[in-house]
Every structure is written in structure tokens, then in C-alpha cells.
């Protein structure tokens, strides 16, 4: 459909300021947090309520126009990259907190509400929303649902899927689905799980009910430095082996430590090969006990330096370095590319060694930050987009890291989603049968493939052309597909 007729139709039910089509108005929407991929849509729409969303969907459905939903645009996998022939729907105007029920400990919010805004609204009741992705100040709950976002506290408190109760969803055909409930489970299939992390492929979330949990009485942090990455990895296993589930367990490698120290002067140990941050939270008595045990384990695991936060200010300053890892990468390098593999923790030292080897091979530096408790690795590949060919080299390097994650029994994405970015690695992680099932699930909700087309699940054709095939138990894939 032409831009002009699309705009005309949209304006019959949307105010003029909710329909953008001039190039300069579209520009802010050309990419999400992964700026290496850019594309202008035909039109951007900014609905303000569910009724307008329904009418936009109906129009796209009738005219067979692709539709991409976008929250705050902080995603790191290109999941909200617009479609050149499509409509981009920003849900940023739907930012009403509809209800907080302090007794039942739930909040019902519109999809554009910021993650942190929920916790802020719940704070007077001593409650908060647990998942805290690093972008929580900006990212929206609708986007969190689409990506099944995690955060530094998710080993103990879970991901988005563990912390939401109910979704109102509109399918592209305009069916309203009420998924989940105010109860702890619901009748039929667990569509709440299926919808969470579905990257805007199955339906548009128009309302989210989240679970709120008590703000911990106390939180304290142990910072331990190690002269060997393997020792730090063992320390993580030792803490968990001792029956402790830390509220947060983060690791940084040497190059990251140096980069953030230069940036922040947080007092990090520059002699360390790795630094571990291990947080305990909960009832005051429990935290005191746990911190003492963590301290002892770090010592037994060979830490060369151990500090325990004595005040809230000190705890936050220990965290500041970890939280500054990405901006620090931005200071030491013109560009960086953030990866998101998850591995069984026992393979950490091997994987880091592998990354070091690749780093030398590609001639690109790589900083490693690691949600160590749950095995989620974020290598930050440093490159300069102004050097011809460096972006491609960085992407290839990243792809190799993800393939290494798969080889050790992990996954290509722990929390950032597949989006546009990791679509090729999906061919390595999954076989034809699984990919076909993903397409079948997509078709159950969106038979014409109008919602976020081309993302998250690669076509079999694409995988065959790539040749990056996963040979599983000796079976070859795509035997039914022609080769070129």
C-alpha cells in the first residue's frame, strides 16, 4: 500500500500527531539499541489506547501491511528494526499505571510504562518489580515481555516470565486474548510463557499485570579479586555449591576492570585477572550470615583481595563500576558490539580463552562482563565503524563466539533476544524440525506473517543458503531443500 493511502486511512481514526511519515519524523525510529541495523518504515504510528491499536491492526490486516511493534527502543538485537514496507507502532504513549494492589501485590500497567516506573510506584507499599535489566530506567514493560528481559538479580528473582501474571493481547486479526490471570495459574496451555519472549511475532500486548515482591530489608555486597579467571569461576561454583543463591553474581575480566577504573576510579584492583561482585539480600539476619559465608568461600577459593560493603553508599559504589562497563567500552573504543551468549558456568574459563584466541585472530579487543550466577556472558567487541570492514569483522567475531556458546551446551541469547541480529545463529542452534515448529506456532497466531516479519526465526531457505548447519545426532538437515 502506498504511504499516502496508508496515512489517509490511519488519519481517519488517529489524530495527525499520532501518524508520522516525513523522513525527519521517522528518523528517530530507524533503529533500536542495536544501531548497526537501520531502516526507515513507511509510517510510524503512536496509538494512545487499546482501541486505536485494534484499528491499526485491523488496517494492517486488511491491507496486508507488515507491522513492527516498538517499546522504548532499548533492545539490543534489532527486534524493533522497522520494515521498509511496513508500519512501525510505538507503544510509548501507553504509559498509564492502571492499578496497584498492595495487598495482592500486583500492578496492572499499560505496555509503555517504564520498568523502573513500576518499582517507583510500588515503593510506598514496600514492594518492587524484580526484573531489572540494565536499561530499566528507560525500557518499557511491553518490551520486557517481548524479550523476556532479565537483569542482574534474575538468578534469585527470575526473568520477566517468572514475574508477570496476566497479559491482554491483540492478534493481528483483532482477536483479544486474555492470557494468564490474577491467580497463580490459569486454565489450558501456558500461553503466558509462550507469549513472553516472543519478540512481537505473535500478538500486541496492550496491558500487563506484574507480580510485586517485598523490597529486601537489607542488601550487602562482597567484591573479590582473583589472579586467575578459572579461580574466579570456581569461586562462583563454590558459592552455589554451598547452597547460597546470591541476589547478584557478576564477573568482569581484566580489560573491563581497567576500562571502568580509568573511567570511574571506583577503586577496583588493577592487578586482578577477574573481579567478582556477589550480593546477598533479604532479611537483615540472613544477609549477615550469608555475607560471612560468601567472604569465607571467596577466601578459600583463592581471592587475592576481598572487600565487603559496609554502607549502602559503598555497596552502590562497588556496583557503579559494573554498571559502567558499557559506557566505559564506549570511551575506550569508538564502537562496541555487545554479545549475549549463555553457557554452563563450568565452561567459563575455556570460553574466555576461546574469545581471547578469536580476539587475536580478528585483531579486535573484547571486554567480558558476565552474569556469572546464571552463566550469561556479555562479550563487548571493540571496533571502529569508520574503518572499512571492521563492523563486518566484529559481526563475524561475534558470530563465532555464539557458535562456541552452542558447542559447550549453551545458547546464542540469554536475554537480548534473537531479533535481526542473531537470526543466522538460529540455524546453528536449531534443526529443521524445531524451526518448522516455531514457524507453525507463529502461523497459529499470525497466519499471514504480518507481525515483525523476518525476525527471531529464520526461514529454512536462509539457513540452507548460509550453510551454517547444525548436524545433530548424525542427521543432516534440510534434505528436502534444493541447494544453490
Amino acid at each position, binding site marked *: 500500500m502506498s504511504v499516502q493511502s496508508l496515512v489517509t486511512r490511519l488519519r481517519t481514526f488517529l489524530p495527525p500527531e499520532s501518524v508520522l511519515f516525513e523522513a525527519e519524523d521517522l528518523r528517530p525510529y530507524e533503529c533500536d539499541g542495536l544501531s548497526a541495523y537501520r531502516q526507515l518504515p513507511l509510517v510510524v504510528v503512536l496509538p494512545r489506547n487499546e482501541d486505536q491499536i485494534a484499528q491499526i491492526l485491523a488496517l494492517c490486516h486488511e491491507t496486508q501491511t507488515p507491522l513492527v511493534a516498538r517499546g522504548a527502543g532499548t533492545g539490543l538485537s534489532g527486534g524493533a528494526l522497522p520494515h521498509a514496507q511496513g508500519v512501525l507502532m510505538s507503544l510509548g504513549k501507553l504509559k498509564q499505571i492502571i492499578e496497584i494492589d498492595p495487598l495482592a501485590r500486583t500492578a496492572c500497567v499499560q505496555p509503555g510504562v517504564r520498568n523502573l516506573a513500576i518499582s517507583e510506584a510500588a515503593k510506598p507499599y514496600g514492594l518492587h518489580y524484580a526484573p531489572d535489566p540494565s536499561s530499566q530506567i528507560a525500557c518499557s514493560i511491553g518490551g520486557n515481555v517481548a524479550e523476556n528481559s532479565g537483569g542482574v538479580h534474575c*538468578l534469585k528473582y527470575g526473568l520477566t516470565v517468572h514475574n508477570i501474571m496476566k497479559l491482554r493481547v491483540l492478534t493481528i486479526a483483532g482477536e483479544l486474548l486474555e492470557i494468564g490471570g490474577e491467580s497463580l495459574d490459569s486454565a489450558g496451555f*501456558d500461553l503466558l510463557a509462550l507469549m513472553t519472549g516472543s519478540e512481537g511475532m505473535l500478538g500486541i500486548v496492550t496491558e500487563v499485570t506484574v507480580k510485586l515482591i517485598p523490597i529486601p530489608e537489607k542488601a550487602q555486597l562482597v567484591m573479590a579479586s582473583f589472579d586467575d579467571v578459572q579461580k574466579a569461576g570456581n569461586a562462583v561454583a563454590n558459592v552455589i555449591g554451598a*547452597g547460597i543463591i546470591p541476589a547478584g553474581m557478576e564477573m568482569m575480566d581484566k580489560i573491563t576492570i581497567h576500562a571502568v577504573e580509568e573511567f570511574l576510579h571506583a577503586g577496583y584492583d588493577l592487578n586482578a585477572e577477574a573481579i567478582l561482585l556477589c550480593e546477598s539480600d*533479604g532479611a537483615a*539476619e540472613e544477609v549477615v550470615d550469608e555475607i560471612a559465608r560468601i567472604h569465607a568461600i571467596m577466601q578459600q577459593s583463592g581471592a587475592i583481595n576481598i572487600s565487603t560493603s559496609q554502607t549502602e553508599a559503598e555497596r552502590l559504589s562497588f556496583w557503579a563500576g559494573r554498571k559502567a562497563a558499557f559506557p566505559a567500552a564506549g570511551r575506550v573504543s569508538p564502537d562496541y558490539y555487545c554479545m549475549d551468549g549463555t553457557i554452563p558456568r563450568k565452561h567459563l574459563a575455556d570460553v574466555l580463552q576461546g574469545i581471547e584466541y578469536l580476539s587475536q585472530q580478528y585483531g579486535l579487543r573484547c571486554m567480558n562482563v558476565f552474569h556469572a550466577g*546464571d552463566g550469561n556472558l556479555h562479550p563487548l567487541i571493540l571496533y571502529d565503524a569508520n574503518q572499512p570492514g571492521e563492523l563486518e569483522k566484529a559481526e563475524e567475531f561475534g558470530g563465532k563466539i555464539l557458535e562456541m556458546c552452542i558447542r559447550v551446551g549453551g545458547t546464542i541469547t540469554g536475554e537480548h533476544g534473537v531479533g535481526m541480529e542473531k537470526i543466522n545463529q538460529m540455524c546453528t542452534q536449531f534443526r529443521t524440525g524445531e524451526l518448522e*515448529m516455531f514457524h507453525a506456532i507463529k502461523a497459529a497466531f499470525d497466519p499471514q506473517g504480518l507481525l515483525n516479519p523476518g525476525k527471531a526465526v529464520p526461514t529454512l531457505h536462509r539457513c540452507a543458503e548460509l550453510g551454517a548447519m547444525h548436524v545433530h545426532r548424525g542427521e543432516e538437515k534440510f534434505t528436502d531443500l534444493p541447494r544453490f
Partner: protein
Amino acid sequence: MQVILDQFKATVAKAYAQKTPLQIGGGGTKHFYGNAVPQTHMLLDTRPYHGIVAYEPTELVITARAGTQLADVQALLDRHGQMLAFEPPFFGESATLGGCIAAGLSGPRRAAAGAVRDFVLGVRLLSGKAEDLSFGGQVMKNVAGFDVSRLMAGAMGTLGLLLEISLKVLPKPPVDLTLRMAMDQASAIEVMNRWAGRPLPISATCFTDGMLTIRLSGAESAVKAAHVKLGGEELDDGAAFWQSIREQTHDFFQSPQPLWRLAVKSANAPMSLPGNVLIEWQGGLRWLSCDDPEAVERIRKSAKEAGGHATLFRRNGLATAVFHPLDGNMMRIHRVLKEKFDPAGILNPGRLYPEF
């Protein structure tokens, strides 16, 4: 095990080709649960495909075949000071892991720790076309592809024959303490919800017969401090009490009347329905023992109005649909998904909903 797997594949492939329904069964301990299916459906016994595939305590993950005895899984975890934190009911010694996941039932710790589905990390299954498919994995965080693994929890075997399941496991708390205090139902619901909103180590709650029982779990210091804050009388054999709730051997569950399971908004006031009530999950789970066949519609309606749904958990002679009816849109999605996973409709047809 390959031989057994090949047999399973052959059985499913044949059923698919001939469109002859299968009933998937393990230890048969949850046979009572769900809609009755004709006994003429050929039984596929999952138990031969058993055994722990991988378990590393420090990775917090266990992978086992679906036919593995749940008791074996639990005993292994127990030896390493770990547990299935959703505290699954067995309903009999022969319960299997596959049945536990397919039924999707969680025990007393559910409100504090999460449900079965929250701990499922990955599954390997046979689809209704006998395709051997793997979803999810053995790591804590994984957002590659749609979350098919969790979709299997509670699907009653209608979407696939589970082969292997990977679960997140957690350390067992060092100390448990069970307290009880007398109060009426309305106060108990309010108190359970209020306490759940404070940072207290409450791992289970149960109200019945004018008595609120709560379990504290965690470090000794934290449990003691919470006991001081909450008061109440210490129950000597707390473990036996919680087991009787989880396994439904408690007196409340001995009634020959139909047993309803109402999952509702936790803070919902006492529901005016006929029959006896036992409440768990901070008010979110209400068991209703009710012999009034006329009350079915009222029970469904009240559960829905309370933000949830009602399941006829133990039919005990009452002939009505087990699971809460789905609205038209949800039923359409269910039917299409079923068709995608099981195009010939051979996997446990009718067990979840008569429509599929």
C-alpha cells in the same frame, strides 16, 4: 535407551499414520486428574525411558528422562542438599518426572518459589508426527526461539510425548519451622497477603478449620527472627503436616465429595460457596470440597470473578468438564496449537478439553 526411543517413535509414527489415539501414562498416580479418556486408547507407557541424563549440583540443573521415578530425582537432589523448589505432589510412589511436568502441579512452596513451569529449562519431545524435537536447554537464561518448553508444563501430554526434561534446582533451606495460630478465614487471608508483602522467609501457608499454619524456611537466624515477629505456636512435626497437604492425605481431603481447585487472586475475600475450604498459597489456591451438583456454574463463575479459574480436581462421581471453559478466541488458539504439534490428534485427545 535408543531401542526404547526407537520403539516410542515407531508407536507414535504408526498412531499418526493410522490416526489411532494414544494415552500416555507413567506411574498412573495422576490418572484421576483431567478428563476421562476412553480405555480403548492404546497405552504408551513412558516408564521404560528412564534415568538421569545429567546433574551437576553447582550448575543448578538436572536433566532426566521422562520415565524416571520422581522419587529417584528427589533422592538424588536430596543427597546434594538440593530440591525441586516447586515441591511437586507425587500422589503415589510410582510418580514419574514426565507425569509431574505434564500435570503441571506444584505444592505448598509454589507461592514463595514458583510453579513447575518456572523451573522448566528445556525439553526433548516427540511431536504427534514422531519428530524428535528439542527446545530450551540446560542453561538458566535462554531466549532463542519461542518458549515451547514451558508450554509443555500442564499441557497434560496433549502437545507432545515428553522424552527428557531439564529443570532448574535450588538448594534446600537449612532450617524449616512450622507455626500455627487460630483465626477465622477472612483474617487468615488478609494476614497471609500482608505478610507476603514483607521481607519474611515464609515458604508455605495453609488455612483450614479455623487454623492458619505457616512454614518459615531459610537461615536459622532469619527463621528465628521471623518467628519472633509473627508469633504463633511451633508445630512439632511440621514436615509431616506439609506432606499431608501436598499429597492430600490430610483429613480435609478424605471426603468422598467432589474436590474443586480454585486458583484465584490471593487477596480475594472468602468466597461464599457451599462446602468445606482449605486455603494455600497465601490465599491464591482454594480447595473446595462440595457435593452440590447444582453448584458447578456458581463455582466457575465465582472463580472467574475472583480473577482465576476452577478445576474439578477429583471428580468423585461428578460428571462435568474438569478444566475451566476457555473463551472462543482462546479455544481457537488452543486448537490450532494442538493441530500444529499433533496434526492427527493422537496424543491424549480429550484429556485437557473435549474439543481436542
